C-alpha cells in the first residue's frame, strides 16, 4: 500500500478538501507549523489563494470571524498554530461557537474547524507546550478529533470539515515526519470510532496523539518481556467510543492510560473515570495514568522529558499493571 509522511497526508487532505468544496476557507496558515516541510503549504496558496486569509495576530478576532463565517454557510478551517494560542480565543470558542447551536434551539449551525498543535515539542517551555484538549472536552458543544497517524490525519480532517459542528482538530508537530500507509482514495474516518493500533491480550493501553506512537514503541519492548499490550487510540474525544475500550478491557482486565494533557482533569482522568464507572467489574487491578505531571512545562530538555508520558514511564506503568 502507498506510504506517505504524515505532513504529506495532511497536505493531501487539505488539497482535496479545498478542491471538493468551495465553501472551505483557510484562516491563518501554519498547518505544517515551522517544520522544514512547511513550504509545501505554499502550493495551496497558489491554487486557492482567494480562499485563504492571513489575519493579524488577533486569535480572538479571527476565531470569531471564522465562527461567524461558518454560521453564514462557509466551512472555515482556522489555524491557531501553537495549542495555547487558543486561550486568546477562549471566549469565542467556548462561549460562542460551542453554544450557538444549542442556544438557538437547534437552528444555527457552526461548521468551523479550529486547528492547533498541542503538546511537548522540545523547548516549548510553559507557554508553548499547551494541550488544551482536556479543557475543551469540558466544554460541551465541541467535537474533538486527535489523530496519531498519516492515515488518521487525512481521514479525520475530512470528517471534521464535513461536520456541521464546531470541531477542534488537535495535531502534534512530533508526528509530522512519521511515515505510514495511506491508501489512495481513502474514505473519511467517521468520528467516534476508536482504532486498535496494536492488538494484545495482557493490558489495554489507551493513548492519543503522539503518545500513541510512544506506546507502540513501548509495546514492542514489552512484547520482548512477554507482555502483550493492546494499544487503543480513541481518535476522537467527542464523540467518544467507550464500547471499543470496554471490550478491550473485558479481554485484558488491565488499564493504563497515557496522554500528554496535564494530569488533573486531563484526558486520562476522563477515560479513567468512565472505565471506573462502567467497566469496574472487568478490572483486575487499579487503573494507571501516565499523564504530563501537574507542573508548568519547564524549558530545560531533561526536565521537559521528565514530566511527559515517556516510553519509560509507560513501560513502568504497564509492568506494574501486570505485576
Amino acid at each position: 500500500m502507498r506510504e506517505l509522511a504524515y505532513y504529506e497526508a495532511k497536505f493531501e487532505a487539505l488539497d482535496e478538501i479545498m478542491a471538493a468544496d468551495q465553501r472551505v476557507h483557510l484562516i491563518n496558515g501554519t498547518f505544517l507549523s515551522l517544520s522544514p516541510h512547511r513550504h509545501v503549504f505554499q502550493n495551496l496558496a497558489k491554487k486557492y489563494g482567494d480562499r485563504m486569509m492571513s489575519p493579524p495576530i488577533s486569535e480572538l478576532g479571527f476565531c470569531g470571524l471564522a465562527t461567524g463565517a461558518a454560521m453564514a454557510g462557509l466551512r472555515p478551517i482556522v489555524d491557531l498554530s501553537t495549542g495555547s494560542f487558543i486561550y486568546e480565543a477562549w471566549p469565542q470558542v467556548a462561549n460562542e461557537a460551542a453554544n450557538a447551536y444549542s442556544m438557538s434551539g437547534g437552528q444555527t449551525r457552526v461548521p468551523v474547524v479550529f486547528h492547533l498543535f498541542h503538546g511537548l515539542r522540545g523547548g516549548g517551555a510553559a507557554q508553548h507546550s499547551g494541550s488544551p484538549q482536556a479543557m475543551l472536552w469540558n466544554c460541551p458543544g465541541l467535537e474533538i478529533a486527535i489523530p496519531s497517524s498519516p492515515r488518521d490525519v487525512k481521514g479525520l480532517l475530512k470528517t471534521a470539515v464535513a461536520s456541521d459542528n464546531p470541531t477542534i482538530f488537535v495535531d502534534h508537530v512530533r508526528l509530522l515526519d512519521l511515515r505510514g500507509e495511506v491508501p489512495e482514495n481513502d474514505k473519511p474516518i467517521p468520528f467516534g470510532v476508536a482504532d486498535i493500533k496494536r492488538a494484545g491480550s495482557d493490558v489495554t493501553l489507551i493513548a492519543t496523539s503522539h503518545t500513541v506512537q510512544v506506546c507502540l514503541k513501548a509495546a514492542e519492548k514489552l512484547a520482548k518481556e512477554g507482555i502483550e499490550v493492546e494499544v487503543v487510540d480513541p481518535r476522537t474525544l467527542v464523540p467518544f467510543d467507550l464500547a471499543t475500550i470496554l471490550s478491550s478491557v473485558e479481554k485484558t482486565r488491565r488499564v493504563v492510560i497515557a496522554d500528554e494533557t496535564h494530569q488533573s482533569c486531563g484526558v486520562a482522568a476522563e477515560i479513567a473515570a468512565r472505565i471506573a464507572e462502567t467497566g469496574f467489574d472487568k478490572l483486575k487491578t487499579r487503573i494507571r495514568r501516565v499523564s504530563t505531571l501537574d507542573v508548568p512545562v519547564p524549558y530545560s530538555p531533561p526536565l521537559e522529558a521528565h514530566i511527559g508520558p515517556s516510553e519509560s514511564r509507560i513501560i513502568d506503568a504497564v509492568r506494574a499493571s501486570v505485576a
Partner: protein
Amino acid sequence: MLPKLPRDNLLELCRRMFVIRHFEESLVPLHDKGVFGGHYHLYIGQEATGVPAISCLRSDDYLFTTHRNHGHLLARGAEPKRLLAEILGRADGLNKGKGGSFHSVAPTLGFLHSSGVVAGIIPLSTGTAYASKALKNGRLTVCLFGDGSLEEGAAPEAFNLASLNKLPVLFLCENNGKYGAGRAVAAGQSSSMAAYPLTDLPKAYKIPAQLIDGIDAGLVHATVSEAVEKIRRGEGPQFIEAQTVRWPGSETNWPSVPHPTDSSLAWDVSGVQEKAREWYRSCDPLLVFARELVEANQATKDDLASMERQVKTEIAAAVEFAVASPYPKPEEAERNFFA
C-alpha cells in the same frame, strides 16, 4: 425629525416602537411575579435607534445583537408571542426555551446568534460579512451593541479585521449613557473609556464613524441608509454611535416601570413621578416620534391612541400565549446540542 418616508411606513415604524415598548413593560410584572427568573434587559428608550435603523435593511441581511436584544428582534418583525415564550423558557419559544432573554435568535429574520457576553458578537459579525463577501451575495451585516462593548479587546480586533478586509459590516453602537446616567460622564468623557468620543476608536482603524442622536428617528434613518449604501457599494465597514438617555426604569439592576407608557404622555407628563418626569418629557424616543407624527399631520392623537390600543391587545394576547405555552420536557435538555 421624522424619517423621509411615506406615511404608511412612518406609521409602521411607530407601531413597531409601540410593540417594543408595551412588550418590554409587560415583562416587568411577569418577572416580579416570578413567571420567569434570571437577569433581563429592556430596550425602552432606544426604540428610535433600532426601529428606523433596522428598517433600512434588506430581508436577507444579517443582524447580531446582545443581552439587550428584544427591541431588535421586534423591530425586525419577530412575533411577540414567540419571543415572550422564549423569555419564559417555554416550548413555543423562538429557540424552544433553550436560549432565554439573552440568547433569543430568529435565523429566518437574519438573527443567527445573540450573545450575553459583552462584545461577543463583534468578531462574529466580521464573519458573516466575510462570508457574504466571499459568496458575493450582497448580504450586509449589522452588528448592534452597547457602548460598554468597546471596552473589550474583541472590539478593536474586529475593527482591524473588518477594515483590513473591507468587510460589508455596519457597527451600530447604542450608547445609552448620554448625560452620565450610565457609564459615560457628562463632560465629554467617560469613567470607563479613555477613547472618548467613542468614535475615536473605529476612526483609529480607518473606519468612517459618526456620532448621532439616537432619539432622532429621522437622523438615525438617514444616517443608517447612507452607511448601508456605502457598504453595499463596497466601501467597507462603517460605524455609527447613536446616543440615548438611559430610561430611569433601568438604572437599577432589576428593571421597574416608573410610569406605564401611554401615547397621551406625549402631550402631558404631569402624572409621571417627579424623578422620571424629565425623561418622559424630553428623552423618550417613542413620545418624541408620536409628537412629530401629529405635528407633521401624519397622524392624529386618536390614530395613535387606537394604534396603541391594538398593540396593547396584541401584547396581552402574547402574554396569554406565552404563559399558557408548556415547558419543554426535561429530557429535551439532552437533545439537540449537536447538529
